[in-house]
């Protein structure tokens, strides 16, 4: 009850602060348009944001400087997140600045137009790509290497159960979490990337074909896709992977999983490609190409494809993220990437039960957040870039 009261009072205070903020703003800037035309909701939003910011700063200062170490350690991940956020923001800013200075005229222009979020997205994607490619050199330990110390607390502070050798701790059987995270970039992202790529080649190709040819080709393909889409994706994948297990194992199974997920995903791509293609094939330049007597392949690959890249690329970003969410769900249901390959989804799954004990062991309980965060960060980054691309292609200016 008192919780609700506090909440209500806080809201009232914030609302009042918002009103004051707008009022003062109007007076101070002599009715500049920003304050003059500011709706109250927006002012309230600002106040709310500021309140959240104050809370974050306060917690951060408490954790970093004031509280005793044991107590402060509860906020370990919070502090890490703040550091991460600041660092990421700064890195994105510097990255964009660099991009604006070096490079070709085209790339410099690109960076000048880029909002900070998109720069952040591009940076994160590059860092992930780097990690994935050079995982072997970057990771302090092997992904399969098992050490004697299991369940080491992250933070590397021996007084609190940490171990400087394992800055992010070790998992339940003593593998270095940091190394597994880095290898996870290669395995998870690599597999997701390949899967999405196949899905796009197959789904996109067929989608454009259907859009161009129409008629029975379109009918047959669309109906087939309807059927596949009518079966829930996760369940279908589960079923097919279980079937595949009867025939192959090891790498073969990973390949089978990639193909199965690509097949299921390609149906979604097909729909998009077909819809986008439909809009393009009615264009006069396609008609002109047809009247010229061009072959189908030329029309699809040289005339349609270049014009469909923006929506397809945007979809690629999303699909790519969904693929590793699907992989992690599959792991949860007992199939998925083969151990001992490190995979973020499986890592989350393995450690996820810790989270319930946050009241007693905050630091251990946050361990699954690392892998989940790795997934979330990439998804958010990809979507930032996607948003930006969509925005650019939409022609809106504000």
């Amino acid at each position, binding site marked *: 009850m008192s919780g609700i009261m506090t909440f209500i009072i806080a809201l009232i205070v914030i609302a009042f602060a918002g009103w004051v903020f707008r009022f003062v703003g109007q007076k101070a800037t002599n009715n500049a348009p920003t304050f003059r035309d500011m709706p109250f909701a*927006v002012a309230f*939003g*600002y106040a709310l*944001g500021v309140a959240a910011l104050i809370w974050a700063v306060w917690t951060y200062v408490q954790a970093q400087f004031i509280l005793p170490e044991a107590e402060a350690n509860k906020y370990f991940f919070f502090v890490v997140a703040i550091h991460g956020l600041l660092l990421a923001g700064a890195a994105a800013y510097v990255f964009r600045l660099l991009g604006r200075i070096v490079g070709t005229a085209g790339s410099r222009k690109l960076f000048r137009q880029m909002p900070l*979020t998109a720069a952040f997205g591009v940076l994160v994607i590059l860092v992930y790509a780097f990690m994935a490619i050079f995982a072997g050199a970057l990771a302090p330990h092997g992904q399969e290497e098992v050490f004697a110390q299991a369940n080491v607390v992250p933070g590397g502070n021996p007084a609190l159960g940490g171990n400087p050798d394992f800055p992010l701790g070790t998992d339940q059987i003593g593998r270095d979490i940091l190394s597994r995270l880095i290898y996870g970039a290669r395995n998870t992202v690599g597999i997701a990337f390949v899967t999405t790529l196949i899905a796009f080649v197959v789904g996109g190709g067929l989608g454009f074909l259907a859009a161009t040819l129409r008629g029975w080709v379109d009918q047959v393909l669309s*109906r087939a896709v*309807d*059927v596949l*889409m*009518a*079966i*829930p*994706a*996760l*369940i*279908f994948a*589960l*079923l*097919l992977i*279980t*079937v595949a*297990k*009867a025939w192959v194992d090891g790498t073969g199974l990973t390949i089978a999983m990639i193909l199965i997920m690509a097949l299921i995903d390609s149906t979604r791509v097909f729909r998009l490609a077909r819809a986008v293609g439909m809009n393009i094939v009615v264009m006069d330049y396609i008609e002109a190409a047809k009247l010229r007597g061009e072959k189908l392949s030329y029309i699809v690959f040289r005339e349609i494809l270049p014009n469909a890249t923006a929506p397809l690329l945007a979809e690629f970003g999303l699909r790519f*993220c969904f693929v590793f*969410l699907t992989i*992690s*769900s599959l792991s*949860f*249901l007992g199939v998925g990437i083969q151990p001992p390959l490190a995979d973020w*989804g499986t890592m*989350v*799954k393995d450690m*996820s*039960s810790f*989270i*319930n004990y*946050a*009241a007693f062991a905050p630091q251990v*309980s946050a361990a*699954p957040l690392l892998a*989940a965060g790795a*997934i*979330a960060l*990439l*998804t*958010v980054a990809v*979507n930032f870039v996607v*948003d930006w691309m*969509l925005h650019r292609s*939409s*022609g*809106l200016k*504000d």
Partner: protein
Amino acid sequence: MNSVLKIIAQRLALGLLTLFIVSIVIFAAVNLLPGDFAEAILGQGATPEAVAAIRTDLGLDQHPVLRYFQWLGGVLQGDLGNSFAQANFASFVGDDSGVRTTVAQQIAPRFANTMFLAGVTAAIAVPFAVTLGILAALYRNSVFDRAANITTLSSISSPEFFLAYVLILFLAVLNPWLPSLSNIYDGMAFSERLEKTLLPALTLTLVVTAHMMRMTRAAIINLLASPYIEMARLKGIKPMRVIVKHALPNALAPIINVIALNLAYLITGVVVVEVVFVYPGIGQLFVDSVKIRDIPVVQACCLIFAAAYILLNLTADILSIVSNPRLRHPK
């Protein structure tokens, strides 16, 4: 309106065809799975005689094609068959009372539960997502928009079970507000049922909101450059009204489509959440049935999933037509 009826009839016919093909695909897939019901149910101690006996009892010794058509014949007469899992192997006891649990009996309560969860989720998520989307469109590119985007994106980019655990942590463990166990059963009071369903519903809300919200936002923003929006502004209409009254009605079709997709997901794709919250829905039944190769139940579940998907898509299309005066009142 007549053309709408025609479209519905056409789509329903196509839907039936789709269902038919889905049933073949699933039947084939389940038959390709290693092992069959007899082996699965006998587990650690499958002796050849016992396996053979069960197979004979359930007709599993017949050719799959024949079995499929027997099943299909039954379905066409409205009989989904008997559940393998609940068949009493009377022959081993000697006195057969002939009682069998039909698939329909087994699925009906589970399906009702699933629909209840989907309903509660939809009731929370759809208005929430659409409102959020509208606000994000109104205050586009503001801090609010960015924050809403980042939050919803982060929530869809976390695995579902992880979201579930996080919600349990905050709403059940740290603050004991909601039960973490959603073991609802027949005869439960509505309020109690609702309370137990709330946590999974919230989890699913987090899962589906981002998609709907982003589509609402994008669909609206897409229209903001159109001349009639400019016209509305030039008539001195308030920004909120411009969006709600002028942009939203024209953005309905894509929004409805995304909502339909997500509702379909709520019916067909929530296995993981059901497992975490021990919610007796159809998804768990499906996975359990696949485990023991209970083909009639698997088939029935898939038919339900596919039908839900098809019907929701159809509804979305019809609503899109109805919401579009051009299609509603052809010249």
